[in-house]
């Protein structure tokens, strides 16, 4: 056998720098890159403008009073205490209603349902469609349901939670399904080959391994619900609440509704309050999204 050098000796030399392809300097890739940067820039600029604007307008009103006081006709004495508590109540109840239901539905679709059956495929398609339905439609649905079961005052915590649950259930189902699908089939096979039942495999292997994905998806879905006003307005959510919500049947308002209400007032002071309440809402959203990122990075499984 000839050595590598021998066999290369007679070969014509091929310079690696041909000078023919100054690819990055041609116009099309450059334009493409510029478009990408512009898109990013526009998104970031809008976000920063929004935050700066809110902070400038509402910063002076952002203080303890906002958290402790009830709405009032005088902006100097008004606060968002019931709205903050209302948001916490509604989102809390929504989480309790949706997360178990969403996970159960996703586990059924992913692990137990026969994927070749037309019925399951139809459900799959429709869950995806439901995730894209405008939120106000879910408000209508919740309204109709509450009327049907004979609830007279529909502006109650459980009613709002119901509307928001309908809204985010498809999102949680989709997120959970993706988390479950990310668990390698080898793990299921390994468990089943030991004589574990499908049920045991799901509970002890698949679900624990998909917790990070499920938690992330659920938190992001809840943060979407937190910012919603439309379906709650449809239920007749109160805009002037001077008491703390104290149960499932209690009347309530939430931060987005309070903001909506204050924005519509003529006095400048209320506009500032609306901006200040927006800061709270943004901080809550940031906190929840941060938590989702933390969970994802902290508990992500590597196979």
């Amino acid at each position, binding site marked *: 056998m000839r050595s590598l050098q021998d066999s290369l000796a007679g070969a014509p030399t091929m310079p690696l720098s041909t000078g023919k392809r100054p690819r990055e300097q041609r116009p099309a890739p450059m334009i493409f890159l510029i478009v990408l940067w512009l898109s990013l820039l526009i998104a970031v600029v809008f976000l920063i403008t929004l935050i700066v604007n809110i902070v400038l307008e509402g910063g002076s009103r952002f203080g303890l009073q906002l958290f402790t006081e009830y709405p009032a006709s005088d902006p100097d004495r008004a606060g968002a205490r019931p709205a903050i508590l209302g948001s916490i109540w509604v989102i809390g109840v929504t989480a309790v209603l949706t997360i178990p239901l969403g996970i159960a539905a996703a586990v059924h679709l992913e692990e137990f349902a*026969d*994927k*070749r059956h037309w019925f399951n495929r139809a459900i799959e398609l429709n869950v995806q469609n439901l995730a894209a339905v405008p939120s106000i439609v879910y408000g209508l649905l919740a309204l109709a349901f509450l009327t049907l079961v004979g609830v007279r005052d529909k502006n109650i915590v459980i009613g709002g939670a119901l509307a928001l649950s309908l809204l985010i259930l498809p999102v949680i189902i989709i997120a959970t399904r993706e988390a479950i699908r990310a668990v*390698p089939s*080898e*793990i*299921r*096979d*390994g*468990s*089943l*080959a*030991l*004589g*574990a*039942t499908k049920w*045991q495999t799901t509970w*002890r*292997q698949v679900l624990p*391994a998909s917790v990070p994905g499920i938690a992330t998806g659920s938190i992001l879905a809840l943060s979407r619900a937190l910012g919603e006003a439309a379906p709650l307005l449809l239920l007749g959510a109160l805009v002037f609440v001077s008491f703390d919500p104290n149960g499932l049947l209690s009347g309530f308002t939430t931060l987005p509704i309070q903001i909506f209400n204050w924005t519509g007032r003529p006095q400048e002071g209320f506009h500032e309050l609306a901006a200040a309440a927006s800061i709270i809402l943004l901080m809550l959203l940031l906190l929840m999204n941060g938590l989702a990122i933390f969970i994802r990075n902290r508990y992500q*499984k*590597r*196979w």
Partner: protein
Amino acid sequence: MENTHDSPPVHLHPVQTSQVTATVTRPIMKVNDVDVYYGDFRAVTGVNLEFGLNEITALIGPSGCGKSTLLRSLNRMNDLIDGARVDGEIVFHGENIYGKGVDPIEVRRRIGMVFQKPNPFPKSIYDNIAYGPRVTGMKVDSMDDLVEESLTRAALWDEVKDKLKQSAIGLSGGQQQRLCIARAISVRPDVILMDEPCASLDPIATMRIEDLMHELREQYTIIIVTHNMQQAARVADRTAFFTAQISEGTGARTGVLVEYGTTTQIFEDPKDQRTEDYISGRFG
């Protein structure tokens, strides 16, 4: 195109083969006229085989000859694939595992499986072993002892005894595969199926697994699918050669058993021309 290379000579393990007689004297499993289907597609047809107690049987053959499909039918792992179906009988301890009233979960506990890619659970080494006994509700006096025994039998105890609480994902590929073997024997099966267990391992890790198989043979019956003929020659008492038959009408490939015998006979004196062509490296 014909391969003009001489195939490397195949060396046989001298000790093991001397004990193996031409016919299976103590069969633990029998495959009677088995066809395996995926939907309408017939993957394997007309297989008749017997697996001897405390023997290692290798299933060899070119890709797509249905050997893995058959292996997965032996402990009903194929049930998990939508549309998979087995015709014929697979008799284990005198009972058809596809018979009415047979619990596939119990079949899988009695007939364990080790997969091509090591698949430890994302848990501690200890919990990987304890998982099987826990889920099957095995009566265990001391889980610690069972874990130690299983890891010892899988020749892994000395390497991991100080880090039982650490994640199994941190082990090397070869160690992970031995962990999977330890996990398989923790539920005390009679038979261990191995689906190309060394396919993703380096030669040294492969050698350790092969040595381990010889030790396990004392207590377990092993059925191994391998692409590597030398491996079959090194470890197996008996070898079954499969090939794919291509239908003239549809072009569909169906696996058939060509020849079955002691490993010595298959490699030194194949009766079928196709077996000879395959083991001498002329096709596949």
